[in-house]
């Protein structure tokens, strides 16, 4: 039986569907600190990552459906490695990667009946905090250039508000991590996050070659225990 649904309605339904999917998951926050960019995810899994390395100075964080953001991550690594090999390592940028993701997500949102239920951040550590780049991409392919901090995932308003209250420029790593964890705890009133329930990684400007580094649980505990 043929029936008519207006394009506006189709797009709205898809967007609602994707938003609901994303809101079911747990949150991820990304914020700048004095030595680079910090990524913190409410993620008890040691093996299934929400935060990953893409290239020398570029990292990736995602929320939503695992298989979908994992597919995007692999595509991003391929994009970066092919470009770095073909031109030069310095020619691989977060902006280029964000554009590629925007194209892909936009096409999937418009053309396929089921949109991707994902939201991602692509961040690149520059020479200093001013040249850091943080791009946030949503399921429909829209891109936003963020400064300072980003929150995404479930209960995002509460997490974002908590992060806004705590974030300031030039935080130390331990202060930034505490702010991130407290913000993630704002997802639920009585939620307390242990080091083991966190996935934490940094783009550390002081490193050579590849800036991305995961922080193991003991190191997370140590940083959380440091006096502010």
């Amino acid at each position: 039986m043929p029936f008519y649904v207006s394009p506006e309605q189709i797009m709205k339904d898809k967007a609602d569907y994707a938003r609901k999917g994303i809101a079911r998951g747990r949150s991820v926050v990304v914020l700048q600190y004095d030595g680079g960019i910090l990524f913190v995810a409410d993620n008890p899994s040691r093996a299934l990552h929400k935060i990953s390395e893409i290239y020398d100075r570029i990292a990736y964080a995602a929320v939503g459906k695992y298989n979908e953001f994992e597919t995007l991550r692999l595509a991003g690594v391929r994009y970066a490695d092919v470009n770095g090999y073909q031109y030069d390592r310095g020619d691989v940028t977060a902006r280029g990667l964000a554009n590629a993701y925007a194209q892909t997500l936009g096409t999937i949102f418009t053309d396929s009946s089921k949109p991707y239920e994902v939201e991602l951040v692509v961040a690149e550590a520059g020479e200093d905090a001013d040249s850091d780049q943080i791009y946030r991409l949503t399921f429909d392919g829209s891109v936003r250039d963020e400064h300072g901090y980003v929150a995404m995932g479930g209960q995002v308003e509460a997490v974002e508000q908590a992060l806004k209250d705590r974030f300031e420029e030039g935080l130390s790593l331990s202060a930034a991590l505490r702010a991130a964890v407290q913000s993630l705890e704002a997802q639920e009133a009585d939620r307390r996050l242990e080091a083991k329930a966190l996935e934490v990684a940094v783009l550390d400007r002081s490193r050579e070659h590849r800036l991305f580094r995961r922080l193991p649980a003991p190191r997370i505990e140590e940083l959380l225990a440091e006096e502010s």
Partner: protein
Amino acid sequence: MNPGTSSFTEFLGSYAPDLLPGRRMSNLAGGTPGNVEIPHATTIVAVTFPGGVVMAGDRRATAGNMIAQRDVEKVFRADEFSAVAIAGTAGIGMEIVRLFQVEIEHYEKMEGRTLSLEGKANRLATMIRGNLGMAMQGLVAVPLFAGYDTDRGVGRIFSYDPAGGRYEEQDFHSIGSGSVFARGALKKLWRPDLDASDAALVCVQALYDAADDDSATGGPDLIRRIYPVVATVTGDGYRRLAEEEIADLAQTVVDGRHDSPGGPTAPLR
């Protein structure tokens, strides 16, 4: 199900095959080799010591009887725990090294774990085999691969032939046009209890001997301050020795040769 490959080379082969080193110059294949002088390299040495391995290479590139460049780099960081160096046609060798660096890093990012040292050595063998067509045309490049085996806690050395044969070497090894001379020196100087800095000194001595008898290998250039590239790989990772450290080693070797041009002597009995 097609989750795709974790190998960068295989991905590139299907996505953009003309970017692979073997195929990039494949339009050269089939013709008769002309009189083009393509830069060649080298003497490369590698020496194991308890807890790691040292790799070193001279800096000269030659095109026929001409010195094409005096400060070429032939020893490279492959990843955190390995080093790779090349001998043979410079253009092809450097391309293979670049691809190899991406290959192992790509695997690590895709899979979320690093390849074993053995796995890296095998990948390199496959890549050399991919260049066999060019090698038959005379554009031969062979690598020397050395790394720290994090499972066993030792330094290991792998050599290759142009057909992609992979051979694990014991204690020390050398490749390139001056390797016959370097290997003689390594044989006399290597001991099982070397420390990292003595192992580096053994490398510089061996390179000096190679440069002494092979015109395609450059000795330490004290006038221009161009010294061999020396890198160590240990449990702490890859480290290229700072210029002052290598300058000291080179000066020690050259000073010693003033009195005995043949270098250190081994006991006769």
